[in-house]
């Protein structure tokens, strides 16, 4: 009796998460209908975001926030991937346990800092540095990208380290016995063996960078301008949604649901890819 109850309960919990996912998709899709019918796929390539007189009607396009989201994420990934890989290799292959332990712990702690703290730190401390060294306003694509990179590095490094740690010592020792250098071992044994986990960690970090709201809202400048230069301010999908959701009505609100749907689909595809790679690794 108790066992059956427990079985049903856990079954319910498991299916619930599936229904929530489908439910969110359905809600986004329904509310986005208005904008989808009005703008169709042109929405993806239209730069305008102009509410009409007295908040009725207007022309909305998602091009700028979509580009802003992609560019800030690309900048973050370009910076974060090599650094995170370096950290993971250092921790698993080079550092002694005495060094690796505290570094590992501090990296895990970094991953736990709430994003708004990164945002505040970025605006009040980091933005003036960027303005002085690179130019521009201080807030913009580059600042947002760098702080995003700092946010996802610990996350990426931790997962990559874990998957590198799964390389059987026998393989490495055999390679060393054949006369391979440390670099050869990392390049030809450790990296190929943990490839699935590394790609998975990169894609999960990518998913996080795409959806990050608070830190980016502080740093990207939140303007509906297409950036011409890397330090120019622009906006991203989550930032646009956070700033305007409370005030929007009718068609503008529907356009925001359309944007949310786009972000949802992109993130969903990204996470599915990551899962696919993780599974690929386990089956091997």
């Amino acid at each position, binding site marked *: 009796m108790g066992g059956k109850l427990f079985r049903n309960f856990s079954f319910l919990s498991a299916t619930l998460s599936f229904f929530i996912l489908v439910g969110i998709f359905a809600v986004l899709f329904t509310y986005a209908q208005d904008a989808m019918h009005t703008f169709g796929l042109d929405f993806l390539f239209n730069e305008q975001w102009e*509410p009409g007189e007295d908040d009725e009607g207007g022309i909305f396009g998602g091009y700028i926030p979509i580009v802003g989201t992609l560019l800030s994420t690309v900048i973050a990934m370009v910076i974060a991937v090599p650094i995170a890989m370096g950290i993971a290799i250092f921790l698993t292959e080079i550092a002694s346990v005495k060094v690796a332990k505290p570094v590992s712990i501090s990296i895990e702690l970094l991953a736990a800092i709430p994003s708004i703290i990164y945002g505040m730190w970025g*605006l009040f401390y980091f*933005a003036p540095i960027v303005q002085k060294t690179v130019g521009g306003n201080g807030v913009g694509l580059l600042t947002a990208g760098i702080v995003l990179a700092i946010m996802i590095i610990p996350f990426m490094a931790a997962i990559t380290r874990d998957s590198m740690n799964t390389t059987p010592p026998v393989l490495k020792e055999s390679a060393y016995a054949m006369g391979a250098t440390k670099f050869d071992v990392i390049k030809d044994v450790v990296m190929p063996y943990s490839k699935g986990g590394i790609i998975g960690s990169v894609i999960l970090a990518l998913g996080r960078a795409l959806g990050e709201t608070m830190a980016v*809202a502080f740093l990207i*400048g939140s303007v509906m*301008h297409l950036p011409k230069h890397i330090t120019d301010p622009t906006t991203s999908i989550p930032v646009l949604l956070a700033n*305007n959701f*409370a005030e*929007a009505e009718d068609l503008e609100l529907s356009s925001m649901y359309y944007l949310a749907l786009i972000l949802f689909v992109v993130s969903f595809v990204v996470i599915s890819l990551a899962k696919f790679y993780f599974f690929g690794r386990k089956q091997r």
Partner: protein
Amino acid sequence: MTFKKIVTAAVAASLALPAVNADELKGRGASFPGPVYKAWTSDYFKATGKKVNYTPTGSGDGIKSITKRMVDFGGSDKPLKPGKLDKKKLYQFPTVVGSIVLAYNIDGVKDGELKLSRAAIDAIFTGKAKFWDDAVIAKDNAGLKLPHEPITVCVRADKSGTTFNFTYFLNKIDPTFKVSKKPTWTAAKVVAGKSNSGVTANIKQIKNAIGYIEYSYKLKTGLPAAQVENKEGHFITPTVKSFQDAAKYATWTPEKHFYAVIGDPDGATSYPIVAATFILLPREKTETNKEVTAFFDWAYKNDDKAAADLGYVPLPESTKEQIRKYWEAHKIK
């Protein structure tokens, strides 16, 4: 065991939180008058024991939530036209007058030193002037060393009544500028922040930035603000006195539910960017409306000081009398 205790304590604490009080009046809307409403509600509670709760979320939200009857009263910096009020079945009246200042962050230029002519303001916010040493700005600032640095314009990221009132002023200078709660800015370097505090933080952080913020945010942060050329061609420093001079030129008509934007007032000593803020009431709720008007009546009578201390201009006695008559005419006093 201790975990259990903690959970029990947390549950008990959350149950002990004050439940929604039926007697409490709830309002939501404009963040521009947020500080003065906060002072008024707490003074009112001390004086009468009655609770009024105002959440400064933004004018757009205020209009939306009172239209949907989610609150007892809504706040908006943008007055609604009489036709719109009839459609949404709302009453409307002003509470205080506030002002918008142009705050800046330029090395070596102190508070009140920068003089901005109407042409200079237009040039900065439309992007015609790209550098601080542009002739149109330098012309009136012979004594200042303005840097050859690009101007960053700080604006609002959200729809805002402050922006509505500021663009209303810009439109008076340059009719091609569209009045809007969230216009498309054409200046070369624009950075947007959420709410008055977001814009204030941006100006503070970005060198060679300028932006429009509510006066009380300037008072709080000590950011330097410019003298602005008014309609009659005088440069006016933003002070409570120059706001009061400006507020005298507002013409209120109760028949139109006080629909009026002060905008760019006459007067040699008037600061040119002032704006009133409004309260919206649902027409059918006579009983709660009486409680809301009782609160504002109390504030009009007893708490001008709190408004003035925060940098707002209390309404003149004659306007208050007009509002009281308006309440009586609609039987909500």
